[in-house]
């Protein structure tokens, strides 16, 4: 298990510190005059104003703690607070960027429901990643056992074994799986061929793969994997990091002290399509 090296961790801490500081500057100083000279970040003052730390810092600590346990004692879950989701699609896009997803492959769309009629319209949003079910309907149907649930509960796909029959796509009650048809954003556009960003390696499951050679993951089923390659380096999934409203939480549900454990204990938590007995590991706070 690789843990992030200390240097990187420090940089990240600093980075987050600056972010927090930046967000709170106006409150701290309530300045009469804000000039370059009198800006000086005093952390002790900061902590008085902002009592709670950013949930991301907390979740990263939870993550580090979970990674010290053997893999089978972890139970990764995701919690999505629909009250905080503003439908910005940052998670969708950052997921596409992180996993270099081609056109037609989406791991985490944000579903929008419109309530009421103009002019009295409201919208509610909920992102739909893979639910990483405890009883996944997609894994038993695979004829070659290429998709399975890991000991930590993450449902993964073995790209080298998958024959691309798409049975799992039909079996998922959440439409969480997509098929890689081998297309590129700039197919048939312009004369310069593929853009550099399209030929960057994907690093899903920690394996470097080049899509441009028509090899896996082209022709495979693809889905959200909770950014396993990030988790195992001590980083949170990309959608969690990029959520501007901090509406997405991630962590180890086997750890009673983790943020997600506390969140899923609330009464206003639901899971999608409970009636199918799939036991999803993505919880929605409503």
């Amino acid at each position, binding site marked *: 298990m690789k843990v992030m090296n200390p240097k990187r961790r420090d940089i990240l801490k600093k980075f987050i510190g600056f972010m927090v500081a930046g967000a709170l500057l106006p409150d701290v100083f309530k300045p009469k005059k804000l000039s370059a000279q009198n800006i000086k970040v005093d952390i002790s003052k900061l902590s008085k104003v902002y009592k709670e730390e950013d949930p991301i810092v907390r979740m990263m600590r939870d993550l580090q703690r979970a990674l010290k346990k053997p893999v089978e004692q972890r139970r990764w879950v995701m919690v999505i607070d629909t009250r905080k989701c503003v439908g910005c699609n940052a998670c969708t896009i950052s997921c596409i960027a992180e996993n270099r997803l081609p*056109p037609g492959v989406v791991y985490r769309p944000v*579903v929008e429901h419109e309530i009421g009629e103009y002019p009295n319209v409201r919208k509610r949003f909920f992102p739909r990643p893979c639910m990483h079910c405890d009883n996944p309907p997609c894994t038993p149907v695979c004829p070659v056992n290429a998709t399975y649930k890991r000991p930590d509960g993450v449902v993964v796909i073995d790209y080298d074994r998958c024959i*691309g029959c*798409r*049975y799992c796509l039909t079996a998922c009650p959440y439409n969480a799986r997509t*098929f890689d048809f081998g297309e590129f954003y700039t197919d048939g556009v312009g004369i310069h061929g593929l853009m550099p960003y399209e030929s960057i390696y994907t690093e899903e499951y920690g394996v470097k793969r080049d899509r441009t050679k028509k090899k896996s993951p082209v022709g*495979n089923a693809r889905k959200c994997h909770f950014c396993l390659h990030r988790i195992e380096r001590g980083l949170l999934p990309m959608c969690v990091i990029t959520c501007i409203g901090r509406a997405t939480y991630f962590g180890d549900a086997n750890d009673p002290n983790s943020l997600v454990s506390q969140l899923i204990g609330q009464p206003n938590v639901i899971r999608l399509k409970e009636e*199918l007995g799939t036991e999803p590991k993505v919880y929605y706070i409503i």
Partner: protein
Amino acid sequence: MRKVPAWFIILSGLGGLVGIISIIYRLIVGMKVTNLTSSVPWGEWVAFYIYFIGLSAGSFLFSTLIYVFGQKNIEKAGRMALVSAVIALIAGLLFVWIDLGHPWRFLNVFIHWHYTSVLAWEILFYVFYIIVIFAEAWYLMRCDLAYLRDTSSGFRKTLYGILSLGWKCPTTEERFKACHIQSLKVATVLGIIGIPLAIGVHGGTGAIFAVVKARPYWYSPIFPIIFLVSALVSGAALMTFLYAVLGDKKSPDYMNILRNLGGWMVLFISLDLLLMVAELLVGLYGNIPDHVYVLKTIMFGPYWYVFWIGQMGMAVIVPIVIYIFKRDSAFWLALAGLSAVVGIVGVRFNLVIPAFVAPPIPGLEDVYNQFRLLFEYFPSLTEWISSIGIISLVVFIFSLAYNFLPMFELPVEVIIKKGGES
């Protein structure tokens, strides 16, 4: 014996060539030649896959009416049923093979066989099933093949030499008859083994869909049964058509056999209709949004004609009406058979594709606008051309098999006489 005319063989051969070229094109370019999406992951090729598996199982089960259940009045269609069962199964497997994202990894199904997957079980079923029908067809034809080998020369001699597997038929009449009875006995035993296999083959193919609880339209115990019964329809219809067109018109019992075949066809169609109506009424009454949406799309959606003209018109009403009014005309019965065989294609399309039009998560249909994520599907040109090409290939192979194989039993005297001479 009538032969398939040369012009027809050449025409279907050319069509088959188109099929092979389009398969190669598909293998080189990849799955993007299709109009499939991640929301409609199975389309025309899967529909034709279950169509041909159904045709195969239907033809085989039809042959067991003769060899297991002793329906002597349709015995002459027996070999034709077995041969078309073999060829249709190969066609079905070809369709599902080109539908794979990684066709060259198909051996993974055996290497990493996964016991919880219905699809994996089906692959095993197909293998055992094809062995059984091959064996049964060989046992039934071995003496005719040996005779043809001994009486022909050149290419035909080599062909029959391979097909007869070196079998030598007894030459005296008494022993020949014993051999004949033994062949029929073996065919009966293989037929009995084959019945559960064929039910497994096609009922199981239905179960591939029926176990998917994510799709209320599929998730019903009646689904595999509908697969089986509509397989029997297509098998009986194919036999009616083939026998009407290719059977020996001069033989005195020709019309009698044909009427019997038509009768079986209509019986199975009625059963199929019953199940179809049950499925529709219960589904509509249940008022589960996903389910009702699918049923309404089938009946009144943009492809309503697949249901009303194909499934109801060609596969149900036309054959039944013809059987009621024109059962004494070989031409009309051939038409009835053809109509049902083609109409069942509509049934197969409607069994697979409409299940995908209802988004499993309401609202998902508005999220996506990328082509590969839409909940809409119409086969691409490549899919159409390759499908028609593969069907031509199948017709081509069947025509050759019909012309070269002893589809109808040779008279005993002929075989014995020749055997006595050599």
